[in-house]
């Protein structure tokens, strides 16, 4: 069972983030929930790349081929994911500020009733 645990945790975080996103009453809170959803992908990616007894693929303090290594390709993907996550959060927050300026409200339900 333990070999499924990390994947289940990643699935749980994603579903919790989606729940928060759907039931949020404040747009900035919704952006926070989206960041939670995004962190679920980090957990899943790194869990796939883990190797029992492996160490980090960084050779500044490690002789090459001396110890089994964890998968570095997955780490590079997760690094890109973190970068894009940060920029998406920033851009969405800028959009939320614009929505607040134009419509005077940040409650998604109120927004849907406003026309134009």
């Amino acid at each position: 069972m333990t070999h499924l645990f990390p994947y289940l945790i990643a699935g749980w975080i994603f579903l919790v983030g989606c729940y928060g996103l759907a039931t949020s009453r404040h747009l900035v809170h919704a952006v926070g929930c989206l960041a939670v959803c995004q962190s679920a992908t980090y957990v899943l990616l790194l869990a796939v790349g883990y190797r029992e007894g492996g160490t980090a693929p960084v050779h500044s303090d490690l002789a090459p081929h001396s110890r089994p290594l964890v998968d570095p390709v997955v780490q590079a993907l997760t690094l890109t994911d973190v970068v894009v996550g940060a920029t998406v959060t920033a851009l969405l927050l800028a959009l939320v500020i614009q929505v607040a300026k134009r419509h005077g409200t940040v409650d998604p339900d109120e927004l849907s009733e406003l026309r134009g």
Partner: protein
Amino acid sequence: MTIRMRRWVMGTGAIGLAALFVAAFMRLPRFGGDRHPYGDRATDAALTRHTANVVSSINFDLRAFDTLGEESILFAAVLGTVVLLRQTREEDRVPPRSAAVDPWVRRYALAALPVALVVGLYVVAHGQLSPGGGFQGGVIVATAVHLLYIGVDYRALERIRPVALYEVGDAVGEAAYLLVGAAALIGGSAFLANTLLPYGTFNTLTSGGVVPLLNLAVGIEVACAVVVLVSRFLDQAVEITDAASDAEGAGTR
């Protein structure tokens, strides 16, 4: 579509997704398994190119083109934020009042500023050796610049942080990345290929051929991009007010 109905629809969708998740996870390789074909090949490729940090080698050597896309996403997002958060006609800019900050906090912020800058530059410079790289170091440098806002106040920060300069720095970082890639093209091999410079001796600052240069370019771009990003948000939150809320006497620290 009342709130209650919407929650039920969301609930059933979540249960369906959870079932699919579990079904998919059952077929994934065991957590901590020993089969990582791509990882082993990437490690061997990085070691042949004398790059100690395999993740940086993947980011700036084996998959340099993808990192170019990632940096362009960052550049476009900052561009979008600058356009979205610009000061519109009916808004005016109220200079923020200086804030009284506890002397100990001020001393710590002004002392921690150079230390954080040095640590940020260390993380960028040793990107291809120890953990870290252009992106992480860039964000640390950008955060260090904002220590002045915490230590003194917003006006002091604005004096040492001319946003136009950082916007140019953002563009220079992106352009430097492209030029290094094009140099490889001119040098007779593929775009962004790591054949331009000698690979140097293993585990030294100049090892890894083009990787340190691309690391530096990304470091410059990310540091400037984050400073521009935060400055736009700070302007909106601290300085820019529109006529409606002027009555409340906004424009605090």
